[in-house]
């Protein structure tokens, strides 16, 4: 491989301070351990994406040589790519963690899908409501998520320990100050907390860490020739029965990959030759589009992530 990164232990010369990835890692381990110590029933949201993969590795590190002391929760909209589901099940087995899969069956039974009810309502039912129901069903008092502050501007103000009211909602104007590395885990009855151990990581940090640690990720992140539906500027991966060609679409073989993994009807691929992690990092450094640009749901109204977050979306 052209790019070599030492797969080594942390730098051990005290005169050389920790490099930034190891400093971020140490901070995340601290956060994960505080969660395990301060909460009765924590759970880790596992979304199958690259950020979840990094968070999972950090949890293995935080509690080594013990097991991860909380279950994983996947909120399955049923519209995820098959490759993602397969990867999810393999990963949970490999790590030895208990996996809880929750779906809003009632909404699925009523035929909820983005093309019929619109993306806002679809996300509201299949992600936000499903998540809140799953947290309630498991009586979880803390939910760990892989969101990063660099992803979207309303997330830049999110705390590491972010309190939700009894309805699972976020009030950005009533956030607790968070100083030093002192995390306030106290909750009033009915309140719960979302915890973001990757708050200070950027997209590039996540990829560099995946490379450094050789963390397995869903193969859809890597470029290869794929059959795609070209619809306007979007490249959609066919996924029966949700994503199929419509009149006016073109079906082509395109060298492409996914930069971010979501639901198959709402997540596009990008044209790319990046078939290794170092090539993905190079591509990211050169690129001028943010990763959420391909996520239809962030752009359905002004401040749309903030509104979803207030309602309880991760």
């Amino acid at each position, binding site marked *: 491989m052209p790019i070599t990164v030492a797969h080594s232990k942390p730098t051990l010369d005290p005169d050389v301070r*920790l490099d930034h990835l190891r400093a971020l890692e140490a901070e995340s381990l601290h956060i994960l351990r505080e969660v395990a110590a301060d909460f009765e029933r924590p759970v880790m949201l596992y979304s199958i994406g690259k950020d979840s993969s990094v968070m999972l590795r950090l949890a293995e590190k935080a*509690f080594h040589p*013990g097991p991860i002391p909380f279950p994983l929760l996947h909120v399955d909209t049923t519209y995820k790519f098959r490759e993602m589901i397969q990867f999810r099940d393999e990963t949970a087995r490999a790590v030895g963690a208990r996996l809880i899969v929750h779906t809003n069956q009632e909404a699925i039974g009523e035929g909820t899908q983005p093309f019929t009810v619109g993306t806002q309502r679809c996300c509201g039912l299949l992600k936000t409501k499903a998540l809140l129901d799953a947290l309630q069903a498991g009586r979880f008092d803390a939910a760990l998520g892989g969101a990063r502050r660099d992803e979207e501007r309303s997330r830049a103000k999110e705390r590491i320990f972010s309190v939700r009211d009894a309805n699972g909602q976020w009030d950005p104007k009533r956030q607790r*100050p968070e100083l030093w590395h002192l995390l*306030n885990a106290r909750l009033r009855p009915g309140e719960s907390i979302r915890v973001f151990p990757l708050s*200070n990581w950027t997209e590039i940090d996540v990829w560099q860490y995946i490379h450094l640690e050789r963390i397995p990720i869903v193969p859809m992140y890597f470029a290869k020739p794929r059959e795609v539906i070209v619809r306007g500027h979007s490249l959609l991966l066919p996924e029966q029965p949700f994503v199929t060609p419509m009149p006016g679409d073109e079906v082509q073989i395109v060298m492409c990959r996914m930069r971010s993994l979501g639901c198959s009807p709402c997540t596009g691929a990008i044209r790319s030759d990046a078939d290794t992690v170092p090539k993905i990092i190079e591509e990211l450094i050169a690129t001028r589009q943010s990763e959420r640009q391909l996520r239809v749901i962030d752009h359905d109204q002004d401040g749309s992530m903030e509104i979803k977050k207030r309602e309880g979306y991760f």
Partner: protein
Amino acid sequence: MSGLLRICTAGSVDDGKSTLIGRMLHDSQAVYEDQIHSVRTASKNRGAGPIDFSLFTDGLKAEREQGITIDVAYRYFATARRKFILADTPGHEQYTRNMATGASTADLAVLLVDATQGVRPQSRRHARIARLLGIDDFVLAINKMDLVDFSRDVYESIRREFGGILAGARHHAIPLSALQGDNVMTVSPRTPWFAGPSLLEHLETVEVTRHLTSLPFRFPVQLVSRPDHQFRGYAGQIASGIVRVGDRVTAWPSGRSARVKRIVTYDGDLDLAFAPMSVTLTLDDEIDISRGDQLSNAAEPPPHAGSRFQAEVVWMDERGADPSRVYLLKHTTRTVTAEVSRGLALNQIGTVTISATRPLVFDRYDTNRTTGSFILIDPATCFTAGAGMIAGLGEGDRTDPDTPLGTAVRLARLAREAPSEAEATEAVAHALEALLK
């Protein structure tokens, strides 16, 4: 040079702080084209010129609509030389609370001053809060120089005035125009009298002297790891100093010692670990240690221990501090109940005597930010109501030699001051015998 620099920014309303940060993110390519596009559209709606850089940073809808910044926002950018985490703190509403939050983890503060306004009372207050939170490195960003014709006299007069305010701290003054980009990324031809470096060049190369590893070893225990009967380890993040296999460590507040047997990590055992690494330690002796206890190196100065101490407290809650109430106090990984000696109003800073129900193991904040800081939690609302920086033991409250803790501190000191291990053993044995008489 460290690969990661944590910065906080401070300035009064309209000093152009959001514009400066937006400019740095934009020019260092930390914002993407689609974000620029949405900001361009929004700028047109607000009639703020071709591109309103402050829209990159104002994250909440209410902020964009009112053109103000409400809450601390964290920004990330990197150059080939360094990675930056920037805490952007608003200049008006709740600014003391927000600035204290941003400054609490920062290595360096960028203080913005409007060249057309000069040093205002708020600027002094920002500088004071940053100093109080332990920041020793400053950039004085004298902004809107384009509005004073890049006057060297204006720059020099503000620089001189701030020199007095920041006495004892290192600072670099830069004349700039955030709006037009002068001296932000590169040195501007419009300030030929300014030798540089530009703001970004300075941030890339500045050496901040926060040598965590040269301080005594401090290890607040987060978790006791007992996956099976064979293994008992203490997981935590090293707050300061270095630990090696074989080091004799003392557990506080019990004062009992043991040697480090292993430094365990997922990536294999280490011979040595240092701050701020997160590791798991095992000891050669089964001493009783639980979450909230602290390990120090028996050969280094021990931490202070006590349940009464003086602290500078920043009050952050609408409901003021009340000496008749009991608060929860979180210090490192230990939470205790505590009382405050005096009232404080929202955004007020004052010296307070803290009386805790259980002893804490701490250092002064000016020597160790992690073991010298705490938060006060209102038990009714669970809000983080106060932030404290320990200034020292309370008057007349030196560790009492007649308490078990005071005895432990004294024994540890005897052991440490002895010239050899044999003599240390002997000194401790004598002291114990004297105690038991």
